[in-house]
């Protein structure tokens, strides 16, 4: 299915947010997630299904002012 991850369209096999993180190599990293502009807690990722056209954000700590 095609979804958008961090602003880029991509074809993915995963059907849940947790599976997507594993597929893209984010396991064990300090990241936070949102789907279609709504925050999804780490604990809820496995139960969060992904649908065609979803917009996923995966962010991690960065320098800031």
């Amino acid at each position, binding site marked *: 299915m095609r979804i958008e991850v961090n602003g880029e369209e991509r074809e993915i096999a995963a059907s849940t947010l947790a599976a997507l993180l594993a597929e893209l190599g984010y396991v064990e990293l300090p990241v936070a997630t*949102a789907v279609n502009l709504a925050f999804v807690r780490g604990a809820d990722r496995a139960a969060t299904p992904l649908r065609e056209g979803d917009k996923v954000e995966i962010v991690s*700590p960065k320098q*800031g*002012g």
Partner: protein
Amino acid sequence: MDDALTLQGERLSSRLLLGTARYPSPAILAESIRASGAEIVTVSLRREAGGSKAGESFWSLVRESGAKVLPNTAGCRTAQEAVTTARMAREVFETDWVKLEVVGDEDLLQPDPFGLVEAAKILISDGFRVFPYMTEDLVVAERLLDVGCQVLMPWAAPIGSGRGVNNLFGLRALRARFPNVRLIVDAGLGAPSHAAAVMELGYDAVLLNSAVSRAGDPVAMARAFGLAVEAGRLAHRAKPMTPRDFAEPSTPVLGRPFGE
């Protein structure tokens, strides 16, 4: 003299808050935090490619500094973006503190007061401690306090401009209007003298980033800002003399030789 600053229940001995962005290297960032004496540093969240360890290593550097983190919502253009970013930050950084930024104008990075108040209201009802980045507008300040903000962070000048205080009257009026609210000048300062000046006005603390990270020697500048903030605070407490237009001799006039 005990002059600790209490921010959201946290006792701090330093009144300087430091940003972590745009330093020449992670080592210089770590050393600058130490040299500044800052006990709170700002951080952000950004998109990162899968497999990258950059975020993880930055986060461990910040944790090793021992400073408390204040995550920002920099770059958010709507209340909804800011609220979601704050919630993501709370999970990653394990803090309910957030420096709330909602950008209203791209050229000046001027805060959008409407989005700011809307986002602050949502976040406070969700348990956040909100540090709103705002202009020096008195009415916006009032609205932010109405929705439950306990700290306000007016700008001195646009982010990264290094101009110093653009509206001295506005900052003085804000301080006078809200004598019991924690007020932190955030953004636009360029030199330690700017920081000392706002502390002399009675501001509770100062938050800055570029003035240190973009300096020729960030570590030395971090220390200079730490000293300036402390000097300004001491000066405020010492109650500066009132300026006057004409001279008044400091040496006693009585007993002057060759006098009348």
